[in-house]
């Protein structure tokens, strides 16, 4: 495949000129024409392949999803069964910000109807900038879903809850930490142990909403902003790096780059199962949680189908699919919980005040940067 350098070197510069002179003989002239013919053939084959791609779909609903592939595909199937409407998953990537950015850059001619996945703060941001369409589903009242999981302004509907978790690389913990007589961490304060110096990976609130929830959890748990940041400063002494994404610590801790990490419990358990990760998962006392949201995009081409989809997302079927695949908690009561997932009530949650977070978000992010220097 690769050219042998020697030939070229021996020929040196001059032989290219000779090559040109050869170009005048009939033989190599025809070879050049042949090469052109082949190029043309190749290009036309490629064009045929391309015509197959990019044909606009005639689906009844277009979804942009910040969820794992399996979950959203099963939800779309169940939606078709329940309503007869076909849904196209035009974009699926587990990065809510990337999906939100697409909605912003495509706002001149909106294509998607539904933005599903990602926590409520991302949907809030989109709503404030005018990219979402108001819709309050009648299903909320009908099923008696707690209002605190819904947008007070009516732009997004919460349909799952996810909790933060601590993950520990079991092998390295047993080899390096356990001999010092230290047990697996069970509270946030356990992470302050100097034994973990340089062995903790957390996320950065400047770049991900998950880390904001972690930061706010410390503030609410300890009762004051100052105490919260005192904790963060203490923890900073043990942190080797802050990843840009909320789940950035999962591959790094699994691989042994650090001993302890903080990530979303539901993603963690799912990945642990899929890839058999050698990590222990702990939901600490005074845990923080996110509200996973679904919303309708302003200018949605299929508005009534989109409203039906939001209604559908609050019924038991998709909540079960989601709880099973994504291991996220349903907002509705009476939905079957998957195995290996502690009951939502069994986790002790901190008293999380979203309004307070929204109000102080920029100030806290700034203070976090000052305290940690990152």
């Amino acid at each position: 495949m690769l050219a042998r350098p020697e030939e070229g070197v021996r020929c040196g510069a001059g032989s290219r000129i000779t090559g040109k002179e050869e170009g005048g003989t009939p033989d190599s002239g025809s070879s050049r024409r042949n090469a052109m013919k082949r190029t043309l053939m190749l290009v036309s084959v490629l064009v045929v392949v391309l015509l197959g791609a990019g044909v606009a779909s005639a689906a009844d609903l277009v979804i942009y999803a910040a969820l794992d592939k399996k979950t959203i595909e099963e939800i779309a199937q169940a939606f078709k069964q329940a309503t007869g409407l076909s849904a196209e998953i035009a974009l699926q990537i587990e990065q809510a910000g990337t999906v939100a950015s697409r909605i912003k850059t495509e706002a001149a001619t909106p294509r998607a109807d539904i933005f599903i996945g990602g926590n409520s703060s991302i949907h809030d941001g989109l709503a404030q900038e005018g990219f979402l369409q108001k819709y309050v589903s009648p299903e909320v009242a009908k099923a008696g879903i707690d209002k605190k999981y819904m947008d007070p302004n009516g732009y997004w509907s919460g349909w799952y809850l996810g909790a933060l978790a601590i993950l520990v690389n079991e092998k390295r913990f047993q080899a390096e930490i356990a001999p010092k007589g230290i047990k697996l961490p069970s509270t946030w304060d356990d992470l302050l142990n100097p034994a973990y110096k340089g062995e903790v990976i957390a996320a950065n609130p400047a770049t991900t909403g998950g880390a904001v929830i972690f930061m706010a959890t410390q503030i609410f748990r300890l009762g004051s902003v100052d105490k919260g940041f005192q904790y963060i400063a203490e923890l900073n002494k043990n942190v080797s790096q802050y990843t840009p994404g909320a789940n950035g610590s999962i591959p790094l801790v699994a691989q042994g780059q650090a001993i302890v990490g903080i990530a979303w419990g539901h993603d963690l358990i799912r990945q642990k199962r899929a890839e058999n990760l050698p990590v222990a998962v702990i939901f600490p006392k005074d845990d923080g949680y996110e509200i996973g949201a679904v919303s309708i995009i302003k200018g949605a081409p299929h508005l009534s189908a989109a409203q039906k989809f939001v209604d559908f997302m609050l019924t038991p079927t998709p909540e079960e699919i989601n709880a099973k695949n994504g291991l996220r908690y349903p907002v509705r009561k009476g939905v079957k919980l998957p195995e290996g997932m502690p009951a939502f009530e069994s986790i002790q949650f901190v008293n999380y005040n979203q309004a307070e977070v929204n109000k102080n978000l920029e100030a806290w992010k700034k203070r976090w940067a000052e305290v940690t220097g990152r």
Partner: protein
Amino acid sequence: VRRLLREPLLLVALGGIGVLLGCFVVYPILRVLWYPSLRDFWTFPANARYVAATLHTLLIMVLSTTSATLVGFLFAYSFTRTSIPAKGILRTVALLPLFSPPFMIAFSYLLMFGRNGLVSYSLLGTRYDIIGWHGLWLSETIAFFPIALLVMEGVLQSIAPSVEYAARNLGAGGWQVFRTVVFPLARPGVAGAALLVAIYVLADFGNPIMIAGSFTVLPTEAWARISGWGDVTGAAVLSSILLIPAFGLFLLQRYWVARRQYVTVTGKVTALAIPRTAWYVKWPLFGACVFTCLLILCVFVGLFAGAFSRGWGFDYTPTLRHWRDVLANGQALVHSLSFAGLAATASAALSVLTAYLVSRKSFPGRGALDFFSILPAAVPGVVFGIGYSLAFTSPPLDLYGTAAIVILSMIFWNIPMGYQTGIGQLKQIAPSLGEAAANLGAGSLRTFWDIELPLLRSSLLAAFVVSFIRAVTTLSVIVFLVTSTNVVATFTILNLANDGYRGAAAALTTALLVLSGAVLAVSRLLFGRRMELFRI
């Protein structure tokens, strides 16, 4: 201008290129620059994170460019002007990093040289932490020296051995020949290579996202603004800042390189073997090449290990189960290869033609054409993607969800590679050849077709190959353009990794690597043995 009017074809070509570059390079970038308000730019210096990212970017640019150009020169010199053994194998390995899609390769570095790395811990027993600026320096050097190698190899090769003989006959020693003859002749190539590498380092995203830890650079910061907060405005501001050093580099290159031009392909046939190199030069060079190649192999072994083992980084039981996911994503692979194939063909043709016009013709706006052909390389992929998404997903030009939008972005994002290659080589070809033809009555087109094009053929092929590989491996551009109908493999790889299927991601990366290698091999068969891949 009057001369232009006498050559309507030239005018049409220039007009066409101008319109294309205007539409598909300048316009999308302007859309990104317009997106934030002036106030957003004004608050930039007050944001400590942004300032830190800017400083980090400049620092790593200097470090990585220097080392990558140096390593690239070392290889290029060894391959073209010494008689070290095993050139073929060394060259193949040295060019492997060109194939590596972002972030999976960087993850492989962690696997080999991280805290718990196979080499650093299992073999050497240290808890060395590669994450940080030093790891980034290493991985960028490895990632970008092949670009420098390709550019400089072409230039060094065109330096006829006769000049070296002449210097030796006049009594110059090996070092003196290098310092006073070979290096000055190679200088435009070195400068061009350094410029290109610097620009790639500036816009690099795949390496720092995985390996830089808290050492943020502008492209990763822009990416984080997008992926974490959906903050298109912040990303646009950050990348606008990135255009400033890119512009600076451009001026520097023009000042330094354009000062002197040397011509070595003059139309006089020379067929001399390269002079012998002293053993104390040859063997250290050989050693350095081998060492670098071992490092590269290490990283790729890490990738293959991921594709064939149960748990990447913790459970090395062999398995084939990740390959089921590869088969399930066959469509994405087909898209990747066909889109990239088309894009690279167009990109190579367009960029080499532009290079020819810029270096051989004089016309108003020549400097601008030159600048806009280099510009895309300085724009981080994510911004190019945002620009395309803003510009081409609504009327007048609505390409949403089509293959065209992906292919166009690949064509124009890769123009600089072919362009720089073409320029570097044209500098070495005496204009007198073309002038002679012109004196004999050949028109511009005839001269181009019969004289310059055959000389440029290797440039064209090299441009095709490099554009193809870059198009196949690009992630940050296409993440803003794909939908379920035009999805490509790198997007699927990112998705698999995000979803926690890192084994499958490694397997798909491997498949992509092998298939693009196969495509290059097949096109070599198609175009006959005279298509020398990777030869500039």
